[in-house]
């Protein structure tokens, strides 16, 4: 009886425990979905505290977005006449439509946040140095694409919130010198937000950008392995390595999983300290990934149950809501635009250029160039907040904090006519029709 119960328990809990290291490796390399993981993974890279698993969280959010997004595509109609009402149908009569839409919305917001935090993590641990600079650039491209994906999705409900957030966003883009007007024209398919803008945003949102993210994501992951795994296990970051003297990583070769004969693919070795601290990817890494996925999935569901995605009145180009706000992740830019707009007498100098183009443009350029400008010692790579990188980490902390504060001000404290209100103060109620 006891044996039966224990068998039943094992059957329910389905414990996978490979008998040998070979069996464990085979489980990884012979599986289409897992073959891009290494067969073994260093313990330092495996811990929660080093990477916070932000990359994995972002990837799972993307997965949730793809699945819910494809399901939503069966019901959404990208036309200015029908878009809003098809969302109403999704909300009220499509089976589980409300939860799909809420989950899609929440996962999108979270993905923007998590991808940004992932970038901060990589910076704070110096994991973008030397040969990892290429992957840093890919990561930056993925961050910008995530923002653009979210922004294009923002327009699709075709309600007042969508219409005016995109109006604010594209008007900021217009401030770019020389290319601004043209860029906005190409993006909107005209000079005003209408049917052609909606269909362009739709195609970008459901085909072009997700495909690009998928390709870049694949490259991003492949590149992590090619660069020798996570920076924390870099030979340069081991305490034994002296400053300035990097032990060359021993090259390691793999067979190409039997696809072609020979051993041509060279990969930087990730485990200078021997195999004793490494764990098998199967089942340890896989189990953690399942845990991360379940946690992310549950979080999006719980958030969807607590708070639904907003849907305001149908888009009305002749009626500007007061206040009109950009999506939250652009609110720090809108805040900069608003406060850098100077009025001297009758002369108004638009802040659109400073807040909308100069500041974000500079930040992106600095982020692109930073791996090549950074002179901090290489042995700091793979450690959180090392002393030698105090200054640059501190500066980024302050920058991130400023962005956060500006976003919160824009989100919670800007009322009608862009006036400042305390979060506990009530905005004047707009008058109603009846």
């Amino acid at each position, binding site marked *: 009886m006891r044996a039966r119960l224990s068998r039943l328990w094992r059957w329910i809990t389905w414990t996978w425990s490979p008998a040998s290291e070979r069996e464990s490796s085979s489980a990884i390399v012979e599986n289409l979905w897992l073959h891009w993981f290494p067969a073994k993974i260093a*313990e330092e890279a495996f811990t929660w505290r080093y990477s916070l698993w932000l990359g994995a969280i972002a990837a799972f959010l993307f997965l949730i977005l793809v699945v819910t997004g494809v399901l939503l595509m069966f019901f959404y109609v990208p036309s200015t006449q029908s878009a809003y009402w098809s969302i109403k149908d999704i909300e009220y009569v499509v089976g589980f439509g409300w939860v799909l839409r809420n989950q899609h919305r929440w996962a999108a917001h979270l993905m923007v946040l998590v991808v940004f935090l992932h970038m901060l993590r990589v910076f704070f641990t110096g994991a973008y140095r030397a040969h990892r600079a290429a992957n840093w650039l890919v990561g930056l491209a993925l961050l910008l694409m995530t923002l653009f994906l979210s922004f294009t999705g923002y327009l699709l409900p075709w309600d007042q919130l969508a219409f005016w957030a995109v109006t604010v966003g594209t008007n900021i883009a217009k401030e770019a010198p020389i290319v601004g007007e043209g860029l906005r024209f190409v993006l909107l398919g005209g000079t005003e937000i209408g049917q052609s803008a909606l269909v362009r945003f739709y195609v970008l949102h459901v085909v072009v950008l997700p495909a690009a993210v998928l390709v870049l994501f694949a490259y991003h992951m492949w590149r992590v392995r090619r660069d020798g795994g996570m920076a924390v296990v870099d030979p340069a970051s081991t305490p034994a390595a002296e400053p300035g003297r990097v032990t060359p990583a021993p090259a390691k070769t793999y067979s190409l999983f039997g696809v072609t004969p020979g051993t041509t693919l060279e990969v930087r070795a990730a485990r200078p300290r021997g195999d004793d601290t490494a764990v098998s990817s199967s089942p340890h890494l896989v189990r953690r990934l399942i845990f991360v996925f379940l946690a992310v999935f549950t979080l999006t569901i719980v958030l969807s149950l607590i708070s639904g995605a907003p849907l305001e009145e149908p888009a009305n180009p002749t009626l500007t809501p007061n206040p009109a706000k950009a999506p939250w992740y652009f609110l720090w830019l809108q805040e900069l635009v608003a406060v850098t707009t100077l009025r001297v007498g009758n002369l108004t100098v638009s802040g659109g250029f400073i807040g909308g183009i100069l500041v974000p443009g500079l930040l992106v350029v600095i982020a692109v160039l930073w791996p090549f400008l950074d002179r901090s010692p290489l042995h700091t790579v793979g450690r959180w907040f090392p002393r030698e990188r105090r200054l640059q980490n501190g500066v980024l902390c302050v920058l991130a904090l400023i962005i956060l504060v500006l976003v919160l001000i824009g989100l919670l404290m800007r009322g009608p006519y862009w006036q400042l209100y305390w979060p506990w103060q009530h905005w004047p109620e707009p008058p109603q029709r*009846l």
Partner: protein
Amino acid sequence: MNSRLRENRDFWPLLLASTASLVAVLVVAYVEYTPEWRQRTEVFRTYLKGRGAYAAAATVPTDVQQIWLPALDRVDRCISCHVNYDASISTLDDLPPLYRSHPELPYLAKHPFPTFGCTACHGGQGYALDEASAHGHVEHWDEPLLTTALADQYGLTRQQLMEMRCNTCHRRDDSTAGTDLINMAKEIFDKKHCTSCHGLLGAGGLAASDLTYAGDLNPEYLDFSNVEGPRTELNWQIQHFKSPQQIVTRSGMPNYRLSNDQAKALALLMLSWQRINYPPQYLPAPRKRPASVLPVVRDVPYPPPATAPLAQQGRYVFMNRGCNSCHRVGGGNLIGPDLAGVTQRRNDQWLTTWLKDPAAVVARSPDLQAWSHEFGDIVMPNQNLTDDDVKAIVAYMKEFPSDQATPGARPGTN
């Protein structure tokens, strides 16, 4: 191989996460499968069984019901809860309000449910399936259900409030059976010759705002600082009709001293004039009698300049009260007579009495009644002028004694 990570230390977090996600999915399924409308129909089924109507109970639908009106761009799912709206399930007496059928009203024959649905007359959000959203008393829905509670705010009955929706289709009717308040408003609108100044459906004057789509006015553009009561467009219109100058300072619109009912009727008329494109088969045949051709104001002439200080004050009042919308001083008649030389035709005493209450003077004098016939029976509105205003205007008029056109009095010149 000796790593402690080989111990299954992720077991409890993993168990917790899987349990949590299972619970989350179950909660989602529960929310999905226990919608409000299903509970309501269940209550109805039980109720019918309790009264022995087993056959009727079996016909209570178990899924979402809707009236789809592609021609009106509407879908009304109200009948998912109000399942017995057409008495097709039960004709028992004393059903709970939710399950009662729609009362048999005379105009229902011409407005069948499958063609008109619910929200076209009642307002509300036909797409929605929960009570709060469906009744439209939520944020971001501008067309709430027209309830007794809502009507009470304005001292109206629900039927009176709903006349507003009748008139979105019936706006071109001269009068429509059953819409007493709107009919009264239309009569006032004709009698007071509002189209002398206001544009309407491509005709009318240009001196005041075009009223064709007055119902689409954005309430955020209205000034509520002097409005008492609810901050709504309907209330603004009511208060504005009762006393234009109190709501909009220096408004040129005459104060017609309308009663409360008249003001409410006109306000409902204004809100009914919305830009809604009904397909032709929904519109009633036009039953409006051809309107008599009336003079309309296409240009508001500036009155000629004055010299004496009191006369200058008079000119200010003359413009401020919109007298120049109807009267010119030299240059011929407009809506009202040319006022050049008026002080030679009438003495100060007469002018003062006239300016204080024109309607009373007309009522006393058959001659004036005959004369005003030339001006389309338009009687000058009482502008509630003060004694000082009257003195100033008379002083201003005295500066133009002759019937001759004054050089500065041509339309459009200052």
